[in-house]
């Protein structure tokens, strides 16, 4: 064997080692990411699944000391508060993201909006809760579903704003030119072409924001407050799954601990189901483009 042949062989051995190492590292990190999720989900199943029954989804909580009862009102309450939050957070978030990416390039106001969004993203949720408490609850003199929706909605805005902006900026300029070249007004090109092209990423951003606030407890303590009964009005205190889980988890009774585990399991499943559902419905009509 000549020297170059030898070094060629050595090189290819080294290369395949590097290859295997890289693959190994990738697999290991995947496991590291997935493992905690599986562990949490498995543990919740183990602790909570046995307490799940029909009553859990249909009955109100029972007074302390009695067994049985469910969290039906909290499930409905969570859906209402999250619905209100999304109605505020998604449109405002997307609109300001569109402003940042399409109309505010280089403008002072845009830089301020972007900065505010980033700061808002870092504000602890409990501080958000107290602010809305001071701004809405104290003024109205009662807790309410509206106040809960407001705090969750505001918490959704920064994530949605920034993902919308970034996703719009990844749409190649030639796509915008194609629309303008057809004699489409700029606003129409933005809403029907740019947003649509960026929509898979924007939807991911919305879902991330949604999933993040769906489990928030602290800000709801100051706003939605919780309720033992069915929601009757959006202007009254309302139950929510995280609140109910929190109340039960710190109570001294084993029965309530078990319900808290079941509640946590249901919360996770509901988040997964709604995210999947939204993804499925909204992906309809938007084709995946090979980039």
């Amino acid at each position, binding site marked *: 064997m000549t020297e170059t042949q030898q070094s060629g062989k050595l090189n290819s051995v080294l290369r395949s080692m590097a290859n295997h190492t890289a693959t190994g590292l990738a697999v290991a990190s995947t496991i590291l990411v997935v493992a905690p999720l599986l562990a949490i989900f498995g543990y919740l199943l183990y602790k909570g699944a046995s307490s799940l029954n029909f009553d859990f989804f249909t009955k109100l909580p029972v007074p302390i000391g009695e067994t049985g009862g469910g969290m039906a009102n909290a499930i409905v309450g969570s859906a209402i508060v999250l619905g209100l939050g999304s109605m505020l957070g998604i449109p405002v978030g997307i609109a300001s993201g569109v402003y940042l990416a399409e109309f505010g390039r280089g403008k002072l106001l845009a830089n301020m909006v972007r900065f505010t969004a980033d700061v808002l993203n870092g504000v602890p949720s409990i501080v958000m809760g107290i602010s809305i408490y001071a701004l809405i609850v104290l003024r109205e003199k009662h807790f309410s579903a509206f106040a809960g929706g407001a705090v969750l909605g505001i918490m959704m805005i920064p994530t949605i704003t920034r993902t919308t902006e970034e996703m719009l900026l990844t749409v190649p300029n030639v796509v915008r030119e194609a629309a303008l*070249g*057809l004699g489409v*007004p700029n606003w129409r090109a933005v809403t029907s072409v740019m947003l649509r092209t960026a929509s898979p990423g924007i939807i991911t951003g919305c879902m991330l924001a949604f999933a993040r606030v769906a489990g928030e407890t602290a800000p709801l303590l100051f706003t939605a407050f919780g309720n033992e009964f069915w929601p009757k009005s959006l202007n009254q205190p309302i139950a929510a799954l995280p609140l109910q889980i929190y109340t039960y988890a710190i109570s001294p009774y084993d029965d309530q601990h078990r319900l808290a585990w079941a509640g946590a399991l249901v919360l996770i499943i509901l988040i997964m189901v709604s995210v999947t559902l939204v993804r499925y419905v909204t992906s309809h009509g938007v*084709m995946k*483009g090979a980039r």
Partner: protein
Amino acid sequence: MGVGIEVKNLNAWYGQTHSLVDINLNMPANHATALIGPSGCGKSTFVRCLNRMHETNPIARATGSVRMGDIDVYKDASPVEIRRRIGMVFQRPNPFPTMSIYDNVASGLKLNGFRNRRIMDEVVERSLRGSALWDEVKDDLRKKSGASLSGGQQQRLCIARALAVEPEVLLMDEPASALDPVSTSKIEDLIFNLKSQYTIVIVTHNMQQAARVAENTGFFLNGRMVEFDSTHKIFTNPSDKRTEDYITGRFG
């Protein structure tokens, strides 16, 4: 029917770069005009000035006058209206990546609020046939996205999209540079047929192509138009030495 385009003292800049200098040119109605010249000489900039796409670039600026028939493109109408009447096929294929083939072709109509399904179906088929793409895509019109086509197919899709809005003038910036000889000759046939309805301005690096489709040819060099004449004259007996050097391949 197409309308003629008359350009007077057109100058264009990108920031400080003076990319077009005092262009004067008449492109008669229902004729094809070819623009040739070495890379970077300003051909794309020129056609983009005709339908006011140039001004969509924030650093770009243009002065001078462009008339289409009896309207002043820069004074009498909005850019949106101008672009609807002067269609454009861009140098790089740019289909809408998240839209189906059908929606890509129908996009000009749909985005301007047109809703009649039956007419839209007809327009889509006619436009795709016109751009010689129909046979290849007719079975996946709604199943495949615009971005899933090959580069040459994408360009023909973009041609169909431009045809679908039935402009009066069609600007084509190297429409065949990504196409194989068969689709190229289909596009050339198409251009030939389109002349009865449209005025066509075509940028090309391929001189045989210019000779085949265009009555008149303009030669650009360094942002100036060196010579404009009948295609036959330009290719057989140019009056400017630089044109002759270029077409005989001595530089460029």
